[in-house]
């Protein structure tokens, strides 16, 4: 295995927490750049998917993390005595679905699709750690994405693995609609 991939793997294992590619680059040092890190991360994710073992590497818009695969939920639940039911209300699921397929998405775009003010629900999803916000200083706009915690609930390594992802995420009609061109 490539040295860089090994180092990332070690870091993900020992930290147990989400790490941003930029942070990983800093920790490895040695003039390694974020682009190389991202490439190595994608290869690692692919390796883990191909092995189809008990561990996965999951990826959100901002971070990556190591987690157990979704197939062994029962054994792990018993071990760590977890009682999460993962129950979410309908409005939360609807909002998270749109953020998952269209993230990073601005609040006004979300509201255009849902036809309803989303301030409160976004605040709630952020508080629960299911969505995260990131400010785009150029566009002076806040963009929302789903978090690693939400992906863990779904048992999915990244949003790209969601059903119909391509159709809903790369849809020209939706792009035009959100840009206000329709």
């Amino acid at each position: 295995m490539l040295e860089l991939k090994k180092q990332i793997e070690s870091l993900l294992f020992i930290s147990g927490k989400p790490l941003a590619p930029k942070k990983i680059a800093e920790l490895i040092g040695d003039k390694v750049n974020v682009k190389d890190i991202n490439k190595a991360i994608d290869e690692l994710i692919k390796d883990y998917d191909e092995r189809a073992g008990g561990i996965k590497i999951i990826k959100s818009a901002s971070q990556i993390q190591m987690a157990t695969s979704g197939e062994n939920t029962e054994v792990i639940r018993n071990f760590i005595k977890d009682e999460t039911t993962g129950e979410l209300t309908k409005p939360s699921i609807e909002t998270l679905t749109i953020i998952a397929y269209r993230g990073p998405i601005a609040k006004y775009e979300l509201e255009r699709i849902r036809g309803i003010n989303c301030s409160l629900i976004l605040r709630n999803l952020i508080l629960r750690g299911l969505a995260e916000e990131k400010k785009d200083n150029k566009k002076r706009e806040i963009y929302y994405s789903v978090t690693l915690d939400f992906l863990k609930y779904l048992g999915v390594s990244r949003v790209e693995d969601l059903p119909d992802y391509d159709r809903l995420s790369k849809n020209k009609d939706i792009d035009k609609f959100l840009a206000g061109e329709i």
Partner: protein
Amino acid sequence: MNINTEQFNGPLDLLVQMIDDDKLDINDVSLGKIADQFVNYIKNNPDINPEEVADFLAVAAKLLLIKSKTLLPYLIREEEEEEIKDFANQLKIYKDFLEASKKIEEILEERKFMYAREFNKKMLTENVVFYPPKNVNKTILRAAFKEIIGRLKIEEKIEENNLEKAVSIEDKMLKIQNLLKKINSLSFNSLLEEQITKIDIIVSFLAMLELMKQRSVIVEQGELFESIQIIKV
């Protein structure tokens, strides 16, 4: 029609359910048909979340516009034509995501949770460690706490303002009826609050329509875009 407030989520969800229940497609004609049903629903459900009333009314206004197009097509301007097309499109896109969210719900129900390791201090350091930060002292803590308290107060004010804004159709109807006890006619504009908001206009308009339907008032308008007069029957 039997839709329970718990079962839908915002005005578009309600609208999609109504369209599905009536086995209609999403287009101008069916949206026009459903307008009355939608307005009735808002009127008969005073328990719609006050923060969402505005959004329901905005949709009601669009549906009424579409309905007026089917009745009086020559009155519709080009921009309004665009708005109608835009709305039907929004509804179709919304429906796509609604269907996707049902699939997501199914995935969640399978409970294939993944787990990350819980924080385990011992895995990272064997010894008892204490690493104080240089940028923290008593004064800084006090200042930070004061700032947090200040922020909570601001949030409180914002939420109060939101509630004040919500006006109901019932209140507006009552206001019209009370005014008409004193005088025989009044202009639509006199119903609006000092600070005119889109929502206020929509609510006032819907209240006026409802009173017309109950035959408590008649409405006159000289020419298009002229002031509307509401007259006691």
